[in-house]
């Protein structure tokens, strides 16, 4: 197991360089005149141009220059310096402010997914073809069919504006309550998938031979379902949830946009819109790391849940 984790960490280093290189290239390689892009419509004086050329190492050109700047960027990154955004703010500061909000939002969404999704999935799986099963089937279909860009504004309008159960927007430094509705909206999609996945897994495992054995041992049904079936059914669900947590941590661009939540997704969206190259690359670089770690955690959890999987 230790060897597996070490190997995966090494792979993560490769993946990290690969993804950052691609994002960096996408953002900067094709730019005609980055200094003019930085200045926008305003004219740039010779002195300014000379200063910026020096600062961004633009005196080197071609592939050689690109890689020089890329490794310069990576070197700073590894020292914890994410650089400055085009607006002059430290990217590290922007992320430090945005991250806690996104994490809070992601955890709320995750809690909703696990508590409601997995619980309802187990119930639906145990009571196949019951009213409960069929109604959850219909409901999850609806949720899966409606995109967040539609679901979020509807929830915001009905629950936030019309009935005023929740604050319609979060604003700067949001508290738990104002993040609840966005969290539920964000979680509803993964909730639906988690529910369907759990239901199928439970229904399948209930027919497994080891369930027959557990019954012949004279165990009560609650224990058979709650211990034997659940443990086996959770294997695919945990895989899904882990990947999903990585997604959620990456910030929810639409949800954060609709509810005006100053999280990572919100900032990423703004950076893309304003063509703030350094900020986009900075955020994506960190997201890559978060995603890779989430995936590693899933794989480790997978082995813990299913002893047949041994990474050696």
């Amino acid at each position, binding site marked *: 197991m230790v060897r597996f984790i070490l190997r995966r960490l090494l792979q993560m280093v490769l993946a990290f360089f690969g993804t950052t290189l691609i994002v960096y290239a996408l953002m900067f390689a094709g730019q005609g005149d980055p200094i003019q892009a930085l200045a926008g419509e305003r004219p740039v004086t010779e002195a300014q141009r000379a200063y910026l050329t020096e600062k961004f190492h633009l005196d080197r050109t071609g592939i050689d220059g690109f890689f020089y700047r890329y490794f310069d960027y990576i070197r700073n990154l590894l020292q914890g310096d994410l650089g400055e955004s085009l607006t002059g703010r430290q990217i590290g500061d922007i992320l430090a402010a945005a991250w806690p909000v996104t994490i809070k939002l992601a955890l709320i969404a995750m809690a909703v997914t696990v508590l409601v999704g997995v619980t309802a999935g187990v119930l639906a799986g145990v009571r196949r073809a019951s009213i409960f099963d069929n109604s959850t089937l219909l409901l999850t279909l609806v949720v899966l069919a409606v995109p967040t860009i539609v679901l979020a504004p509807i929830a915001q309008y009905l629950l936030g504006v019309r009935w005023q159960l929740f604050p319609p927007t979060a604003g700067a430094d949001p508290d738990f309550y104002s993040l609840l509705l966005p969290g539920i909206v964000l979680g509803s999609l993964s909730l639906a998938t988690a529910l369907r996945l759990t239901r199928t897994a439970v229904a399948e495992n209930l027919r497994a*031979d*080891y369930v027959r*054995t557990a*019954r012949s*041992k*004279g165990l009560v049904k609650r224990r058979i379902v709650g211990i034997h079936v659940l*443990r*086996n059914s959770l*294997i695919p669900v945990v895989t899904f949830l882990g990947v999903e947590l990585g997604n959620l941590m990456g910030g929810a661009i639409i949800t954060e946009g609709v509810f005006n939540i100053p999280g990572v997704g919100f900032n990423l969206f703004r950076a893309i819109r304003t063509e703030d190259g350094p900020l986009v690359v900075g955020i994506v670089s960190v997201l890559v790391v978060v995603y890779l770690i989430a995936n590693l955690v899933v794989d480790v959890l997978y082995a813990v849940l299913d002893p*047949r999987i041994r990474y050696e």
Partner: protein
Amino acid sequence: MRGNRPTRGSERKAGAVSQSAVQPTPASPTPEGGHLLEVRDLHVEFRTGEGVAKVINGVSYHLDAGETLAVLGESGSGKSVTAQAIMGILDTPPAVIRSGQIRYQGRDLLAQSEEQRRQVRGTEIAMIFQDALSALNPTFPVGWQIGETLRQRAGMSRGDARRRAIELMELVKIPAAASRLGDYPHQFSGGMRQRVMIAMALALNPKVLIADEPTTALDVTVQAQIMDLLSDLRRDLRMAMILITHDLGVVAGVADRIAVMYAGRIVEHADVRSLYKTPAHPYTKGLLESIPRLDFHGQQLSTIRGLPPNLMRIPSGCPFHPRCPYVQQVCVDVVPHDLVLGDGRTSACHFAQEVRDDRAR
């Protein structure tokens, strides 16, 4: 036969805490005149989207304390379904028990509540299955799975259950039992896995052990070891055993009596010796003739022609008639009753005596 169990008594008591406190396990727990376990005229159907399959059509058999009954038949003959009905672990739906009785120590199990039946499972009647790999939970260590029965059913502490699980694993001759407690089912060989299953079934000292094709998934050499183990354990622990199999070779050395099943009914029932020597049902006779023999070199192996019947459309009269070499018009028209042949033998064939006396094999 009365009194304490001599050799393994102390060892067994640990597992029987709750139960032996209530009743002092008499050697012959059968009420006067009755059998330990008796299936009476059992009818079971499977209701599926495609129709109703009549899987069990009037099965009756009995088991006395300490004896071994072999239930023989090909796939789909209903031998496993009968066993699962006894255990009360049939999946309902699709299975429906239409009628019949399953009497254990004089009480009809089918009339009992689910909770009462759960109490019987494991403590009175235990079962082991064909494929131990899928029958064991893949995600828990074997020691935990054996111990679970002891903790949940006998109220043992974790430590006691652990110690007892090691004893049980030693009882079924798993080498280095203590060190294998934490291993998972997939880390064992097929034979060792089946031993784990047996250890688990023995945990609560059942009086009846149902072994559902316990050696079918195993290598031939391992088959013999498992059969020997089962046979020794049955004798030492004074259990009664129902051995379900389709392998005539497995039965010979172990069973006292044999019930042969075909299309959901018992077609012949006899002690082992008579059945092998003078089969009284054409189906049994066909089975025996299709065993390869070392001394019959270069001859074509005899088979039973045709296929087992579709249980949704069981043939009229005797269900075996389309495949039977003795078939007459009466076989097509009339369902044969069990013909009593003496010595406790029965055969559900219109021509049972002729078949028995027809020695031309």
